[in-house]
């Protein structure tokens, strides 16, 4: 039995017919939507390489059946930048050398975006390391990753404060 689903991927409405319910979101993105930025590491929830946002919450795409996502909003690493302007987390990963081979990086960045919006880690390095523990890095670039997430957290908080101030000034 085939299943027709509609979902939004990186802001774009997509209609998909799945003739097999076994397709994971990870395989749908990589094999059928030409979005290979989301990586397959373990395919079992253990490494975080496949992290994406579904309805703004970070999850593992490898354990998510695509057929369950009718109506969902998915954001992948390809959807983070605005034109040529990198998302603050992407910029911070470059500034702090948050990677070596780069394989885990899309997952790290998506996980960091999710973590920052959850808002429980703040700018405490220990809470950030704990909050990022679902993302393994074979190259062990952890030091740079933590620095990048910390810096991005601060930059995004500053930007929020600045835009609040702008709003107050214009009000």
């Amino acid at each position, binding site marked *: *039995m085939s*299943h027709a689903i509609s979902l939004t991927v990186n802001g774009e409405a997509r209609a998909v017919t799945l003739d*097999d*319910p*076994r397709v*994971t979101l990870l395989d749908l993105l990589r094999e059928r939507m030409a979005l290979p930025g989301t990586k397959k590491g373990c*395919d*079992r*929830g253990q490494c*975080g390489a496949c*992290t994406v946002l579904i309805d703004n*919450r*970070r*999850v*593992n795409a490898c*354990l*998510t*059946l695509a*057929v*369950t996502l*009718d109506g969902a909003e998915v954001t992948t690493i390809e959807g983070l930048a605005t034109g040529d302007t990198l998302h603050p987390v992407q910029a911070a990963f470059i500034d702090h050398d948050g990677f070596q081979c780069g394989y885990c990086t899309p997952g790290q960045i998506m*996980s960091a975006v*999710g*973590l920052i919006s*959850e808002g*429980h880690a703040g700018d*405490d390095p*220990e*809470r950030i*390391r*704990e*909050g*990022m*523990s*679902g*993302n393994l890095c074979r190259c062990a670039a952890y030091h740079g990753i933590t620095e990048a997430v910390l810096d991005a957290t601060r930059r995004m908080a500053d930007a929020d404060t600045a835009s609040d101030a702008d709003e107050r000034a214009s009000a």
Partner: protein
Amino acid sequence: MNLFDYIRPASLDEALSAWEPGAAWLGGGTNLVDLMKTGAMAPGKVIDVTRLPGLDGIESLPDGSTRIGALVRNSTLAHDPDFAADFPMVAEAILSGASGQLRNAATVGGNLVQRTRCAYFQDPWSPCNRRDPGTGCAAIGGETHNHAVIGWSDRCIATNPSDFAVPLAALDAVVEVAGPSGQREIAMAAFHHLPGDTPETETALAPGELIVAIRLPAGARAFRANSRYLKVRERTSFAFALASCAASLRIEDGTIAEARFALGAVAAKPWRVAEAEAMLTAQPPGAALFSQAAERALQDAAPSGENAWKIDLARRTATRALALAAAGTPARMPALPASTFGEPAHA
């Protein structure tokens, strides 16, 4: 992965009538999809319950109990400020399990029904009485670091891996289920089964029964000032427990008025011993007392393989968890939930 029919019912009634032998409920899928990939589970029908209405709230009932809908995500529950303030060791246990991504997907109902992490169970080519009754147990005589040291049988020595289940057992939670013959309630103490001769029967759920909610009784809130979950694992984060303990005390005028503690990762269910808890009542908190109670809780322990070390580890974990509980619930969730690292040296 086997081929299956996928359906997503819109109501509880529709879900219950869609069930047939060999079907599986789909919550967050973080355990079911994983095991379908290895072939350890092969349901012919997957019934997605994640959009059933009315099962995703956390509510306070008039009798003072707290009711958690089965579809509430693990992260949502642990970060709910009222819930975490009332049941701190439940929140701490959840946050010590899995990862941020997995907790966002996992439902509380699915968490309770997650299968063992016995590696032989996950591998469909190994003999396993739990997965395929009558085939034997590859873990006996095999690798047993995450296997049971209490309540096991010669048919199966697996442990239950859920962190969440451990404080729920200590706090006398109740599981509300709906099934073909109506609604009923199952006490946490009776929810998970010890293996005995039928390790394939893991829980008290009858075929076709669905968890609809988990309820914490009003009295469970009385422990909020002195409650901790402690989890010893092979790395500080993102690892299953080797031994864990949910400990809670009600202390009045320097004396323990009531004590609850349950051990995790040592048996096929959270391990709670009434006599061990009773030893703590009407006593002033103290290291020697905690160690005697922990000893009592593990009185019937025996290694199921090369894991005698785990008995000692569990005893020390319970002793330490009770001491942490006596020291008081931290004002804020620790940066490393349920970890001994980052605790003050005197704890």
